[in-house]
């Protein structure tokens, strides 16, 4: 039997909750929405190449989880990770410039949309192979334990990754060695075009953790407060008990898998149903209803974000292209040749 997918009313803000945190959650969710809408436009204009995977609709899951961690807790993510970088505090200018493939980008134009990374903010990157980054997060958790540090690593992955063997390996090691890892499955209900029930024999993905005696739960990923609470609890458990936790957050992406997906196969009534639970709209209602923000404050956040995104796009467009001399930069920490082409095997200094 499958559990009901949680679709209840938006969680009320707990009494005594911090209005500044509430506003920050809304600000970040809105920034991501605004940023990605703009990224889609820039993609259509040809300013962004390759794949562009948008998380529009998933902002509550992204922001609720990232903001529940300490800024020093390391995170890994998938190729749908603009929001994670922004939530972590990466400069929107540098993120947009990376999408544009410019020198000023977060990764100097070497990464692109799928490979954002910001070490300064303990964002350990977006990865393009489904499931492939999960053991890296376990390694980040291992490092915390090895150094007797106080931290939690969060592995963010999608529903599709739960059918990759490496998740099983990762969960087993995390539990076996008591590593502080939160396995955060952002279940947007589709692995590209394949619905979870067409790919998974058991669609209760959170129950995968039971095989390793890892506590797990399913939450409403459209409800930022529910996500924030669940990840706060999970991170606290991982940090204090030195043990992993799994969370499955049910969400929905409002766009196709990537910009090249016309989104023809998902049922229209399903899309409409989930659009009716837009995480920004529902959260705004809670904030206003409970008097945590005023309409004017929300408007101020919106216009500030719009200006930030416009500035980021202008910055990216005005940024220099990556010089070709950077082609072979960063292949090695200790390169032995300056020549990226013909003589790449020649030891440095030997002519």
């Amino acid at each position, binding site marked *: 039997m499958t559990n009901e997918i949680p679709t209840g009313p938006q969680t009320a803000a707990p009494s005594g909750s911090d209005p500044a945190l509430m506003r920050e959650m809304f600000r970040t969710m809105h920034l991501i929405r605004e940023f990605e809408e703009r990224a889609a436009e820039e993609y259509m204009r040809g300013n962004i190449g390759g794949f562009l995977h948008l998380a529009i609709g998933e902002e509550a899951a992204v922001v609720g989880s990232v903001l529940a961690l300490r800024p020093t807790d*390391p995170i*890994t993510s998938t190729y749908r990770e603009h929001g994670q970088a922004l939530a972590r505090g990466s400069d929107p200018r540098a993120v947009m410039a990376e999408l544009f493939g410019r020198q000023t*980008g*977060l*990764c*100097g*134009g*070497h*990464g*692109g949309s799928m*490979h954002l*990374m*910001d*070490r300064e903010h303990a964002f*350990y*990157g977006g*990865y*393009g*192979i489904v499931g*492939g*980054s*999960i*053991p*890296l*997060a*376990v*390694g*980040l*958790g*291992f*490092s915390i334990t*090895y*150094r007797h540090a106080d931290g939690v*690593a969060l592995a963010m992955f999608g529903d599709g990754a739960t059918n990759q*063997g*490496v998740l099983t*390996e*990762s969960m*087993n*090691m995390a539990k*076996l*060695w008591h590593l502080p890892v939160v396995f955060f499955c952002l279940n947007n209900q589709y692995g590209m075009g394949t619905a979870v029930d067409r790919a998974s024999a058991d669609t209760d993905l959170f129950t995968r953790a039971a095989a390793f005696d890892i506590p797990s739960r399913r939450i409403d990923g459209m409800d930022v407060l529910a996500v924030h609470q669940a990840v706060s609890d999970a991170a606290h458990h991982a940090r204090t008990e030195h043990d992993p936790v799994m969370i499955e957050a049910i969400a929905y992406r409002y766009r196709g898998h990537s910009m090249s997906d016309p989104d023809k196969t998902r049922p229209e009534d399903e899309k409409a149903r989930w659009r009716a639970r837009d995480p920004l709209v529902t959260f705004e209602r809670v904030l206003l209803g409970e008097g945590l923000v005023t309409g004017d404050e929300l408007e101020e956040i919106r216009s500030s974000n719009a200006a930030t995104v416009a500035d980021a796009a202008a910055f990216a467009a005005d940024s220099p292209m990556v010089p070709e001399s950077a082609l072979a*930069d*960063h*292949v*090695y*920490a*200790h390169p*032995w*040749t300056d020549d990226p082409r*013909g*003589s*790449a*095997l*020649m*030891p*440095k200094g*030997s*002519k």
Partner: protein
Amino acid sequence: MTTEVATVTYREALTQAMREELERDPDVFLMGEDIGLFEGSFKVTRGLLAEFGPDRVIDTPISEAGFVGLGIGAAMTGLRPVIELMTVNFSIVAMDQIINNASKVRYMFGGQVSVPMVIRMPGGAGHQLGAQHSHSLEAWFTHVPGLKVVCPSTPYDAKGLLKTAIRDDDPVIFLESEGLYAKKGPIGGADDLVPFGQAAVRRSGSHCTIIAVSRMVWISLAAADLLAADGVECDVIDPRTTRPLDLETIAASVRRTNHCVVVDEGWPECGLASNIATHVYESCFDWLDAPVGRVNAADVPIPYARNLEQASLPSATDVADAVRATLARGT
């Protein structure tokens, strides 16, 4: 200054390298299947669990992709994992982690992180282990920018190169040869590091250059003995690392001998020998008196039956024949 100390096995040379680096740097840890309590499938980690404890010598589940990935994540924070894959054959299970993550993260993240990790693994055939346990995958790894690839042939190099690998800030694929673990020879002291990208000239001769990797160095030295009996003298060059490759030493030799044969235990197609031969053509074309010869494993999965397996692998006779054929073409 090089201080040669005791004569030990290739296996013990590797153990010493790890012991010394574990002592030197608390960020170094070992991880792999049965490396602790069992002391390694090939006993390369003998004594290290007892000496350094289970926090630094870690037995893993049989999850190659998982613990190689874990090592990459740990290395991204500055730890120095030395991962043992029980054999090179099992690296294939971890190839996504090695190729898509270890070799890429530094580049695609604009240099924000390094992966100071070593993945040690024995490879090669010759023990009747059949098709799935006899791979020589030097060429696969050498293909990939972002990796460094090391193939020691002597105890001295096994120790000195492994110490260099552990101190290197890039991911190093360290390919040991199963057939060499019992090989004895002198080794260096705690500070004798062997640099990457510096070939060793194992024997000198003026008629033909033999370039050989890992265990094939010894096959080629035996071939050189056979040839010397006929008055043919060979340079035998051991690149020691295939990425970076010391083309300078190779080219200097070929320009002197005007003949070249390349020997590796992998398959012939898109192989290490083909690749080195191409470099020789590109850098020495005007000096060559004959096409570059190649000696490889037969282009078949490695068979079980002893006689078939031996027939599939390069032998000293094969190498000597290849040298003679090359010299015959050149006259």
